[in-house]
């Protein structure tokens, strides 16, 4: 169990790697959430401008 905040960030000197991995995860999952919703909204907008 990690006890204090500095130990969490530092993680025995290898904190950079762990947090980099977490960043990669959040980034790629975020892209996977952002792209479909943007596509959906784009189709709605196109339909609207085409007057359907």
């Amino acid at each position, binding site marked *: *169990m*990690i006890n204090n905040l500095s130990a*969490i960030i530092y*993680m*025995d*000197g*290898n*904190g950079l*790697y*762990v947090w*980099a*991995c*977490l960043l*990669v*995860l959040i980034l*790629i*999952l975020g*892209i*996977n*959430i952002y792209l*479909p*919703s943007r*596509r*959906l909204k784009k*189709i*709605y907008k*196109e*339909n*609207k401008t085409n007057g*359907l």
Partner: protein
Amino acid sequence: MGSPPLFFQWSSKALPWLAIISIIVFSIGMVWGIFYSPTDYKQGDVYRIIYIHVPSAILGQSILMFMAICGFITVVWRVKISGMLIKSAASIGASFTLIALITGSIWGKPTWGTWWVWDARLTSTLILFFIYTAIIGLHSSLDDKTKADRAISILSLVGIAIIPIIKKSVDWWYTLHQPSTFTLSSAPSMAPDMYQPLLVCVLGFYLIFAFLLTMNLRAEIVFREKNKTWVSKQYLNRQKNDK
């Protein structure tokens, strides 16, 4: 639920719940693993990457199996929605495999000293990624999307048949060439304190997959049926609800 418009309406109501549940379980698993699990005596705190790397790898392979099952349904019973499911799942599977590759590489730097090692697991994950890109590339290159769905059904069926062969042969290939300085110890014997958060993480990742799949599938359905009246009605409903 086999008909796309019905699925779309059902998922519009279910999506917020799915998002909430998946984010909750995912966060519980990640926080437990990264902050509260005990420190490994060999690797220190770096091993915590396992809570990102292993679930991503598991998901990467399970998604291909999911795509193969949907592919079988598409080819045999010509169900439209299972074809769209394959296409929606493919990019998610590729993303998870990519996460597994990148985090595996980042994990390797402090523990093995290099950014990449041609060991059996990383190599077969790389090949899995190539299979995903082949499927995505084939689908995007065909203009008729129903035909494209059936084409990637065939490809995912071949993929699932060949994955065990690839894994076995890569395992064998690696034992032949394994340099004796590396003794790669993977997860197997883990203390229950470390194992439990991993299970929760895997569950959380599966729920996240369900959420992402639903989002992708909704976008795909609307894209394919954008000229139908139910889509424009949906948009008007949304506008009403937003106001």
